């Protein structure tokens, strides 16, 4: 196949044109900044509108605090907020790791033996139908008042989306890829590690991105029941004390952590799935 007439390299297709190049890059820079600045401007405008509404209509602080009051709490009571974020963060991350590990293991078992799926999947569906607010007291009764029930709730909440997605990703392999491995006399282990696992990664990351946010929610809901520390506990306390600036500040801290967690997973996805066309697009 020494015939090189097909444009195997695009080098010849490019022509130097400094002015057009500069215009193209300038336009690209403009679009990049636009994409970053637009949401910032929207948030700033929203905060201004909120602040003005509270001022103009003289809304009582315990009904809705002004963003300035929330900002004051964020700065003045930063240590309290962080002290409460720490347990929630630990519970959410441990629950995330535990729940996803369990889900990936079970998905592997499902794909390994269809019988496992037929027997166990209905149970997983049943558990998933129980509302979180009902799971939480059950787990507190079972596991006590420490971090364990919160970790368990975060884990359970992560478990189901990952189980469903991972099972699908491991199973939905292109038939030709399996035929290829058969022609190569690959062992079932080699098929699993070289075809099924990489094929499942995009599916897995879709689930992990959902799980990153829901794990934090799970930990917070867990803290509503019998807890004195954590973002969830702080939400309950500030609500009962009509301390709405603290309530709002707590929510800002919890949401920021959730968004950061999501960002870490998205970053990991970008690093691991460079080959994925749909991801690159």
């Amino acid at each position, binding site marked *: 196949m*020494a015939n090189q007439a097909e444009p195997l390299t695009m080098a010849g297709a490019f022509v130097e044109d400094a002015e057009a190049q500069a215009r193209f890059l300038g336009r690209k820079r403009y679009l990049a900044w636009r994409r970053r600045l637009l949401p910032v401007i929207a948030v700033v405008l929203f905060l201004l509108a909120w602040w003005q509404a509270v001022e103009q209509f003289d809304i009582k602080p315990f009904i809705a605090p002004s963003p300035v009051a929330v900002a004051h709490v964020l700065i003045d009571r930063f240590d309290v907020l962080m002290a409460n974020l720490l347990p929630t963060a630990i519970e959410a991350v441990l629950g995330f790791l535990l729940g996803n590990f369990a889900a990936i293991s079970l998905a592997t078992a499902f794909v390994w033996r269809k019988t496992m799926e037929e027997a166990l999947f209905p149970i997983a569906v049943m558990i998933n139908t129980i509302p979180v607010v009902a799971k939480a007291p059950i787990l507190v009764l079972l596991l006590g008042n420490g971090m364990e029930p919160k970790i368990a709730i975060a884990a359970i909440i992560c478990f189901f989306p990952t189980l469903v997605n991972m099972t699908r990703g491991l199973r939905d392999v292109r038939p*030709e890829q399996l*035929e290829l*491995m*058969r*022609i190569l006399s690959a062992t079932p282990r080699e098929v699993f590690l070289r075809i099924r696992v990489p094929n499942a990664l995009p599916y897995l990351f879709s689930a992990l991105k959902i799980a990153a946010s829901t794990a934090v929610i799970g930990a917070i809901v867990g803290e509503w029941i019998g807890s004195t520390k954590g973002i969830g506990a702080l939400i309950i306390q500030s609500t009962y004390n009509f301390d709405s600036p603290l309530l709002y500040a707590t929510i800002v801290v919890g949401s920021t952590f959730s968004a950061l967690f999501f960002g870490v997973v998205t970053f990991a996805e970008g690093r691991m799935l460079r080959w*994925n066309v749909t991801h690159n697009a």
Partner: protein
Amino acid sequence: MTAALSRPQPPAADGREAVRCERVTVRFTTERGTVTALENIDLAIPSGAFLTLLGPSGCGKSTLLRVMADLIDPTGGTISVMGDVPAKARLNREIGFVFQDAALLPWRNVLDNVTLPLEVGGGKALPGARSAQELLGLVGLAGWETAYPHELSGGMRQRVAIARALISGPRLLLMDEPFGALDEITRDRLNEELLEVWQSTGTTIVFVTHSIYEAAFLGQKVLLLAARPGRVRELVPVTLPTPRRLAMRETPEFVALAGHLRRVLESC
């Protein structure tokens, strides 16, 4: 085609048979009944030959190829590949397979796709393995080692698939409509280049196609299959001179051959 291959090649025609089918029959049972995909196929492919399989859709061309590759067990009859059962030939890595849509692994770059056969199924200890770099040069993809499949055109993907099929040094290369989804210009070029690959490797090639011109241009012989049930209609020898060039398709001999194939196909 200048690259010298590291593997010493068996003589192109050593008088042995690469594939022998005796009354091979394949039936599939579905909810709507039993379908006979192939019926009593008798066929002998000499070592080093280039055979094209041509027939209307549903004639069992791909099924026959998959029986040779040990992907489908025949319901009846016997088949031997390289003088043994197909499973033995498969375990010995005597078989390379090229699929219609390349079937590359999207998470591996070109080089890692080509070397996949050496990683699995005991491929590490393969004595006949070829160098990935040489093969990429052979298929015109030197310098593309780190590109991912989604960055390649359809023709380039098939070039990678061909390199991958050849890396274990198989003596039988099975190709299932490999250029069927490509544009005509790319297909023509790959046809010419495939003949060069065949000449330089001495591999026996069985090539399934639904294009009359492709079948006539590539094959030393064209096996015409009839549909429902799939059976041998005619084995047509191709007497065009070698090396073949695309311009040959305008000669009266080629036109007559293509016309003959067309008439037989129409009566299938």
